[in-house]
């Protein structure tokens, strides 16, 4: 189906179903119950899941396949965001041109940076990308203020010269982003018993884009081009000896992953039309590294899982405070309750970064294939007697373990 083998088609179908029914799946707890705070099915967060999923899928094409660890990928996301907002300011509030221009601008930007950075490899490449990203951040924050809005960020205003569209709506407010009239913030709410499900137009636009991006990623992974990228990772020298120049392949991978980042940036501003320089800061680049590794670098679904996990922690786990913890452990004797709360508290709520850091370290130490590999290992435990377990992702994870990045 669609030029995929059976396993990949299955994986794609699963992802399609998951994204389609995400508003149900992420809202398993009834409204008003004490567990309702774990519901992640609100539009803003669901959009973030898929947008950062796209970002991580793109990063994975570079890091997972070629082994080049870029510490400056957020620069492309930022560049894409700025380009998207400018399209909205100058042309139209329709999201399509904004997204296209974001991808193109990020692609050109990554072509420039990749061309220079890819002259070195290993840690030098990481430092070069980091340096470029930090430079972009510093410039966006200070000198380029007329283009980027500087500290306040780039926002829409009431007197934007929008060529195809109006500067302001009849009631004097800024028009909202739309897709041929379908407003991105439109939501359809459906109440079933105690449950409330929200179906957001913006989310489904993002999800559709994400599915296309995911499909393209599968095709790249399975293509001869993807094989070349794996060759770059496992042994560049041997590749040279067989008469192949690795440079164009890595540059292509870099630009593709930059375009994915730009796509994520474009979607981000399509949902919420403002862009700030902090999106380019190196911690943002570090975050996508965390997502990809946590989920499983070199696997197809891993980066999406990693992105979902981190965004879930950032938005849900971080909201748990000590009062809620006390409520949870209230059934215990007072002394034990206090002890448990004291023990657990540093790891959740505002301390969620600590949990993230520990999880990340554990994954890097014990599970180089990320959560996907963890799942496979558990799966293998259960069906050891069956045929030798080779899941959909096995080849990629296997390869990562055998031929580490260099």
């Amino acid at each position, binding site marked *: 189906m669609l030029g995929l083998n059976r396993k990949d088609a299955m994986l794609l179908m699963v992802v399609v179903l998951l994204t389609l029914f995400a508003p149900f799946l992420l809202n398993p707890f009834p409204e008003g119950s004490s567990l309702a705070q774990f519901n992640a099915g609100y539009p803003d967060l669901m959009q973030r899941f898929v947008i950062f999923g796209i970002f991580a899928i793109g990063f994975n094409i570079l890091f997972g396949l070629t082994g080049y*660890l870029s510490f400056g990928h957020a620069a492309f996301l930022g560049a894409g965001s700025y380009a998207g907002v400018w399209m909205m300011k100058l042309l139209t509030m329709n999201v399509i041109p904004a997204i296209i221009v974001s991808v193109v601008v990020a692609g050109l930007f990554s072509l420039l940076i990749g061309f220079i950075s890819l002259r070195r490899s290993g840690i030098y490449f990481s430092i070069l990308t980091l340096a470029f990203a930090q430079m972009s951040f510093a410039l966006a924050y200070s000198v380029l203020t007329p283009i980027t809005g500087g500290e306040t960020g780039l926002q829409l205003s009431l007197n934007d010269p929008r060529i195809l569209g109006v500067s302001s709506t009849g009631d004097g407010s800024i028009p909202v982003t739309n897709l041929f009239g379908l407003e991105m913030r439109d939501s359809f709410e459906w109440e079933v018993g105690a449950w409330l499900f929200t179906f957001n137009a913006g989310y489904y636009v993002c999800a559709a884009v994400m599915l296309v991006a995911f499909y393209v990623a599968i095709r790249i992974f399975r293509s001869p081009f993807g094989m070349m990228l794996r060759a770059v990772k496992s042994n560049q020298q041997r590749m040279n000896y067989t008469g192949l120049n690795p440079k164009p392949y890595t540059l292509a991978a870099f630009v593709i992953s930059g375009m994915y980042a730009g796509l994520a940036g474009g979607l981000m501003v399509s949902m919420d039309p403002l862009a700030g320089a902090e999106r380019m800061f190196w911690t943002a680049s570090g975050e996508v590294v965390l997502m990809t590794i946590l989920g499983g670098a070199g696997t197809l679904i891993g980066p999406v899982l990693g992105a979902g996990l981190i965004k879930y922690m950032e938005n849900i786990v971080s909201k748990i405070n000590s009062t809620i913890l006390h409520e949870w452990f209230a059934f215990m004797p007072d002394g034990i309750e206090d002890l448990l709360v004291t023990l657990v508290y540093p790891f959740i709520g505002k301390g969620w970064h*600590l949990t993230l850091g520990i999880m990340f370290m554990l994954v890097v130490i014990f599970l180089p294939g990320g959560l996907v590999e963890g799942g496979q290992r558990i799966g293998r435990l259960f069906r050891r007697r069956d045929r030798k377990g080779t899941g959909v992702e096995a080849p990629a994870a296997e390869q990562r373990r055998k031929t580490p990045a260099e």
Partner: protein
Amino acid sequence: MDAIILQILNGLDKGSAYALIALGLTLIFGTLGVVNFAHGALFMIGAFCAVTLSRILTLSHTVVDDSRTDFLGNPLKVEVPYVYDWFGQAAGDTIIDWAVPLSILFAIPIMALVGLAMERGLIKHFYKRPHADQILVTFGLAIVLQEIIKYFYGANPIPTPAPDAFRGSFDFGVLLGFDPNTIIYPFWRLVYFAFAMVIIAAVFAFLQFTTFGMVVRAGMADRETVGLLGINIDRRFTVMFAIAAVVAGLAGVMYTPINSPNYHMGMDFLVLSFVVVVVGGMGSLPGAVLAGFLLGILESFASMAAVIDLIPGINQVIIYLVAIVILLTRPRGLMGRKGVMED
């Protein structure tokens, strides 16, 4: 002329910090071959050693002072630091005042322990893993350390003043024959620079003039042969890791009066220190020091008003720009050795 001297001086303190951190990074890289992204966290832990010591010194107990009364006529309760009880008020005040320099003594064993624990507990297992994995695991460790500090000390910067004696500024210009008040430089920054020079000299002397240092240098050049000669080079490299941790920690301790420590100061410095290491040349100790001072001074020159007028925004990007140019034209860095981290 005076403006140029002033900028050189301004660059020295930041350059000293870069040089110290980069020196430690290079020591670790040169000996163990590990790219340590948690080195900035060590710098930060050092700074928080100073915070901790000054908190310990000001630990107090409440004493009822019968000689004074509050506005209701009750005897006044005053907080008396324990150091007053032990050393008397005058000496106690001096000790509290000198908390930051005293923290050096406090920080050395702590940083050495942290370094040893880090190397034995975690990094040891990553010698054979690829550099990308080393970067990632130490990056994770840096996040963890940073969050632990944040949990105990909060997210806000904690002001930690220098001793009174060094608080003022020093009219450097008069010394060189310029008009008074042209080149004014805070005392503490001079102290920091001198301190950095002493530490750097000590590390180099240790490597150059002791048997231990000689073995370590031999190990850096050819680890296998040294091992074949029956020397336990791993243990010596572990000690070097601890020394690198101490160097980063001391750089952090002494930096506290210049910039109030906060939990992300390590990361802020780390990014730049890596750039410094790469500019200096991976694995070259003199290169790291040279590049540290060079970039510190360049950065302060770039922030002169005249330069910013000429090229806007240059002060923000100069370091990265230099790094990019150096990496592309002189891939080994200023003083990089052959065969270290080459593709």
